[in-house]
């Protein structure tokens, strides 16, 4: 153990030095305009998810699909004149910021929720989607207002926004907490709780497969938005993106996107305005 302890500071120092150096290096920005560089390369590199249907996923034929991807293709078309001039880079939730910081992608369109912490690291454009909490309950005992939950058991996932929201704002509602999605939904099916709170998009997809349940409360609490992100300080691309998004907002592009990519997934029971934001409006 002694030897190990000797090397821990060494390892930490190494990581810190590398971190410090990278921070310095990123200060010196390139002189060439970022949009010119994309045009020179001939393709816009956009980071998307490859396993998060219906937002960004790969279908059985190996094609990238989804709500984020649909927007990405349109961005490529307006920037470079052709829908196919986009290079999809598959990112993970944990490395989205790194991809931008190291210039490995131009734009991240991977269901990136806007938070204050992330704003310090990347620049967000106008939001194009929103997520909020929903509450699902059986149709024959439907809960349409939070006040109805008093004295009843509500199922949530441990540590999620739903858990935090109810613990903070409604301490008198009894919460049943589970680690896994599957456990939580099974608990609702078994009747161990009266209702279940989760991200509304997740619930919309779930009730489609489960007759007898409905999302009584479709949007609740502090609404989070989802926006495209670019590298911190890349104002040129950010401004272009914002103008582009405003233009798309005027032509109701996101609603069209919803009909093409999300409607087949969520069915007719939901109102697009619970999810979609037309940017700039």
């Amino acid at each position, binding site marked *: 153990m002694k030897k190990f302890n000797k090397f821990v500071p060494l390892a930490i120092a190494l990581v810190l030095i590398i971190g410090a150096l*990278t921070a310095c290096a990123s200060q010196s920005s390139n002189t060439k305009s970022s949009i010119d560089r994309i045009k020179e390369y001939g393709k816009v590199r956009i980071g998307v998810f490859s396993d998060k249907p219906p937002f960004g996923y790969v279908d059985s034929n190996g094609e990238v699909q989804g709500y984020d991807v649909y927007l990405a293709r349109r961005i490529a078309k307006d920037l470079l004149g052709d829908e196919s001039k986009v290079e999809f880079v598959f990112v993970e939730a944990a490395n989205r910021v790194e991809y931008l910081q190291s210039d490995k992608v131009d734009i991240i369109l991977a269901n990136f929720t806007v938070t204050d912490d992330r704003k310090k690291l990347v620049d967000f454009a106008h939001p194009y989607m929103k997520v909020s909490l929903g509450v699902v309950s059986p149709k024959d005992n439907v809960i349409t207002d939070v006040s109805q939950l008093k004295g009843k058991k509500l199922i949530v996932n441990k540590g999620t926004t739903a858990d935090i929201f109810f613990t903070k704002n409604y301490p008198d509602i009894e919460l049943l907490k589970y680690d896994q999605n599957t456990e939580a939904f099974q608990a609702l099916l078994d009747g161990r709780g009266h209702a279940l709170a989760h991200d509304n998009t997740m619930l919309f997809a779930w009730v489609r497969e489960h007759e007898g349940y409905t999302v009584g409360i479709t949007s609740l609490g502090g609404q989070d938005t989802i926006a495209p992100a670019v590298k911190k300080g890349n104002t040129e691309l950010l401004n272009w993106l914002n103008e582009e998004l405003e233009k798309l907002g005027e032509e109701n592009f996101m609603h069209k996107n919803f009909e093409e990519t999300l409607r087949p997934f969520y069915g007719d029971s939901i109102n697009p305005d619970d999810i979609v934001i037309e940017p700039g409006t």
Partner: protein
Amino acid sequence: MQDLGIRVLIEGNNLYRLMGGLLVTVKIALISVIISIIFGIPFGIVMTSKNKLLRLVCRAYLEAVRIIPVMVWLFIFYFGVPKLTGIHLAGDVVSVIVFSIWGTAEKGDLVRGAVTSLPKHQKESGKAIGLTNVQIYRYIIIPQSVRRLLPATINLVTRMIKTTSLVVLIGVVEVLKVGQQVIESFVLQSPSASFWVYGFIFFLYFIICYPISLFVRKLELRWKE
């Protein structure tokens, strides 16, 4: 409604994609293993050197590789190096570099252990009959230590094959990631997809790793004679 989850394996291009992912896994692992063995043996011998400074440098390298997780190394080379130097390396190249660095260190330590475990008189006898240092290593030390460290090396190789699943974090889509893509795109239609897909991937890893074990068992038997 309830359909057989096994169907997702043959739906569309899925099987082809999974095999493509497997090829990526095997390619990264195989190249790294070969490089690790080529560099690991001399590295291990250098580690037994009497020169203190040389030993310290080797020790620092080995411990740095062991203490810093492979995932962090991948991040440093894939995201850190471009930020510093502007040089962009492809994800699979970075994977091979990192796995080779890791493999060389581990293989080197195995070699060091095997060499020092040989009785001292082996080396001394060699000297007594007038062999040079190179000849002692070529004819006495290396052949004996290679046999001793065979099981540990195979352990390292299979560990490297399995650890390649980390490379997805630097954008390399290998077999496990393809599996997740397949599962997630079927998550509503067939909830049992994960069972079949992961089962199939388990089988794929098995048919790569098992022949290696078999081969080694044969080798050991033959050497015993």
